[in-house]
């Protein structure tokens, strides 16, 4: 008895298909109440503007609102992120650099001091956006760098003026990785928002208790601005740092949602081990598969020899056996990535459509050796790869396979393993002598993958790229508001980058997202908005 891939996909299709049915056809009225149990992460602290941490952002996804947000629910296909108003009831864009947001009326802060349930106003939004770009230590501030000023036109109207057109502005505001709206009084009272007492938002749940290293408990916000929501009264989040412990807990029904990554999935390597036990013990479990947006790549010093020669970079890409890597490391379930991860299906180009550059994604050691010889490296060369494990056996195994692939074409690379902190401080920011291998932050829109990694002098431009062609296209896509046209430019960028191979992209895993059958109107997606995805969900038990 085992679930085949076909069965899983069918289940996933059924789960998604259910959303397309009219409400009456589903014949299920949402029930109020109950406690959902999830695996959660212990935030280093709660001030999302003073840290880049998915742990903090996930916690705030339960308690805070944003100006705009990504739609959630079974009607949204994983890997897509349609926008809708959150605190903003509507918005207009009178010109390329101006946005006017009309706020919902009657939105109340959580009934906790110092705000004590007062109404949210345009001043709060203005304060949040200004703090986001001015507070010292916000390394996400670049997301709103094009913002020039924010005005509270009246109590319910916010006007944002940009210095230059920035087509991703709304996507940045909607990102659950950054801009939750906060109250000035909280910052004034607590000095910053690091303490649990300062977790006061306008979101669907309120933080009821926080036990460091143990749990976060959220209770329903009775004054949430969307009538009737959330349906679930209480969310118990358990900090469960050990893989075997949380898998055993999930198998025995402790958690309602899968326990790995923010997509609520089970790692494929573990899934293979426990799926039979799960089928017996949790027969109602819902399963959906979709590509993950955690993408690893080999970056290299393209400002130095030998990597400054495009033929060397192309040879390296040809050397990597991507399908072999999927088979060996990802249990056969993975997707090839170009410059934009395949998971972002609205923006990513499949390898077959990369044009001339598509051929560099094939595994062709003979052609790789030929290109190396043409570049003057007939005997290959020696190099090093800076690396940290991130505690992931998948990453360690894939690094070994990449080393072997390079060696097969004459590139003798040594793995220089660093401790995580040392890696982040050096190699992750482009400070390495030869090459680096590791995952990138899993953003939800392509700009963060492209502009940040390819634009000159950006801190995440690990490969030290100074290419005026790509820089021009990167700026152009940012200034193109017509989505179809912007998509064309982003496709053009991917085709161009496929030929250049500034980074050797490695396949991503396909996630197996699972959730309890009793959890209705829930659908997984990428991104940290777990609270958002549970807001309209309900428990049928």
């Amino acid at each position, binding site marked *: 008895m085992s679930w085949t891939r076909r069965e899983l996909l069918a289940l996933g299709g059924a789960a998604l298909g259910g959303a397309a049915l009219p409400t009456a056809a589903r014949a299920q009225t949402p029930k109020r109440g109950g406690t959902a149990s999830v695996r959660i992460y212990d935030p280093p602290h709660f001030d999302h503007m003073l840290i880049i941490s998915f742990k903090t952002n996930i916690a705030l996804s339960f308690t805070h609102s944003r100006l705009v947000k990504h739609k959630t629910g079974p009607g949204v296909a994983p890997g897509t992120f349609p926008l809708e108003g959150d605190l903003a009831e509507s918005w207009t864009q009178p010109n390329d650099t101006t946005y006017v947001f009309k706020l919902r009326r009657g939105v109340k802060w959580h009934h906790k001091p110092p705000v004590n349930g007062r109404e949210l106003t345009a001043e709060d939004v203005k304060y949040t956006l200004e703090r986001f770009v001015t507070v010292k230590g916000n390394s996400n501030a670049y997301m709103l760098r094009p913002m020039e000023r924010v005005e509270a036109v009246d109590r319910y109207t916010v006007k944002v003026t940009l210095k230059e057109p920035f087509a991703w502005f709304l996507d940045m505001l909607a990102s659950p990785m950054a801009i939750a709206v906060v109250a000035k009084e909280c910052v004034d009272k607590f000095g910053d928002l690091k303490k649990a007492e300062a977790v006061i938002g306008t979101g669907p749940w309120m933080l009821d208790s926080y036990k460091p290293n143990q749990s976060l408990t959220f209770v329903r916000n009775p004054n949430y601005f969307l009538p009737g929501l959330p349906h679930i009264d209480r969310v118990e989040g358990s900090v469960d740092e050990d893989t075997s*412990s949380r898998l055993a807990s999930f198998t025995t029904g402790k958690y309602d949602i899968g326990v790995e990554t923010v997509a609520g999935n089970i790692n494929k390597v573990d899934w293979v081990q426990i799926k039979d036990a799960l089928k017996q013990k949790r027969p109602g479990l819902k399963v959906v598969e979709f590509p993950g947006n955690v993408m690893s790549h080999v970056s290299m010093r393209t400002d130095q020899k030998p990597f400054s020669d495009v033929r060397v970079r192309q040879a390296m890409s040809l050397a990597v056996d991507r399908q072999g890597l999927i088979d060996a490391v990802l249990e056969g379930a993975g997707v090839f990535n170009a410059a934009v991860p395949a998971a972002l299906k609205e923006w990513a180009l499949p390898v077959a459509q990369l044009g001339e550059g598509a051929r560099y994604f094939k595994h062709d050691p003979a052609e790789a050796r030929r290109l190396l010889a043409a570049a003057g490296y007939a005997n290959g060369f020696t190099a090093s790869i800076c690396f940290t494990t991130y505690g992931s056996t998948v990453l360690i195994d894939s690094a070994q396979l990449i080393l072997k692939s390079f060696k097969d074409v004459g590139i003798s690379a040594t793995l220089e393993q660093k401790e995580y902190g040392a890696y982040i401080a050096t190699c992750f920011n482009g400070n390495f002598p030869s090459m680096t291998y590791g995952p990138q932050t899993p953003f939800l829109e392509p700009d963060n993958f492209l502009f940040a990694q390819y634009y000159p002098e950006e801190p995440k431009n690990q490969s030290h790229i100074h290419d005026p062609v790509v820089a021009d296209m990167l700026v152009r896509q940012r200034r193109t508001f017509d989505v179809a046209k912007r998509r064309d430019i982003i496709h053009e960028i991917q085709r161009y980058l496929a030929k250049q191979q500034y980074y050797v992209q490695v396949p991503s895993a396909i996630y197996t997202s699972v959730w309890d059958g009793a959890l209705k109107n829930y659908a997984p997606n990428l991104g940290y908005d777990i609270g958002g995805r549970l807001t309209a969900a309900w428990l049928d038990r």
Partner: protein
Amino acid sequence: MLKRYLVKRLFVALPSLLIASLIVFTLPRLIPGDVVQLMLEEKAYAKDLDEMRAKLGLDRPIYVQYFDWLGHIVRGDLGESLWTRRPVTEELQRRLPVTMELGFVAICIAICIALPVGIISATRQDTLRDYTARSAAILGLSVPGFWVATLVIVLPAIWWGWRPVTGYTEFSADRIGHLVQFVLPGVILGIASAAALMRLTRGMLLEVLRQDYVRTAWAKGLRERVVVLKHSLRNAVIPVITVLGIQIAQIVSGAVIIETIFGLPGMGRFLFEAINQRDYPVIQGVNLVVVSGIVFVNLVIDALYATIDPRIRY
């Protein structure tokens, strides 16, 4: 005399603690990658890094930072976490008891296993019981605790659907549950120590049992229990107690993994995360407390020598 000795030892411990403070202060700063780079991660523009270092006071000369920290230590203030701004003392008050309880249970279990089994093994040398005990000890030393812990958690869940006993129950919430939660991790943590102590107990006891005064005791017709427990064990156990002191340090380090697996919010996990985050005040505070604890335990052990062996006088 003992009192004078202890005062002298305490006085001698002060330079040790001072040197330890210098080491725990300096070493974390020598690891590549500082706390500011980790805070700002991938979007670390040079200007932002400098500003943040200034904000946290990390731009001052290192000796100034050290003496500043030392001044606070003398006043009982271990500083506050650079990440969370929570006082280190407050965190330790919450987490230290968890690790101490776990360590206490582990040590108790280690002693309860090691001494009886070591005695039986020594007094029944080269019998089936001795071979069994020695084999078990080697197994206990060889099998990693995290592996046993993983099996203990995963297999019952898959075979019988038993939900793993993980997470932390506070004493005020459920007294029995609070105590019970330490049994399984305590046993796992104690097994390796028990194995080491058992082998040492056996070896030392065998040596003592061959001493002339023990032969005399046998010749006097004393019962085995008296010969072994009264005349032999007290002499044999002194090195065991010394090793017990060392085992305590090992148990604290082993607690890092066991606490993570069993979801116990102790000091081990706290220290591990602090090192990853280069949270200097936390690393310094926790290590200083651990060092002080080990100095104290060794002091207690020294005092115990005199109690166990009347020949030892200070």
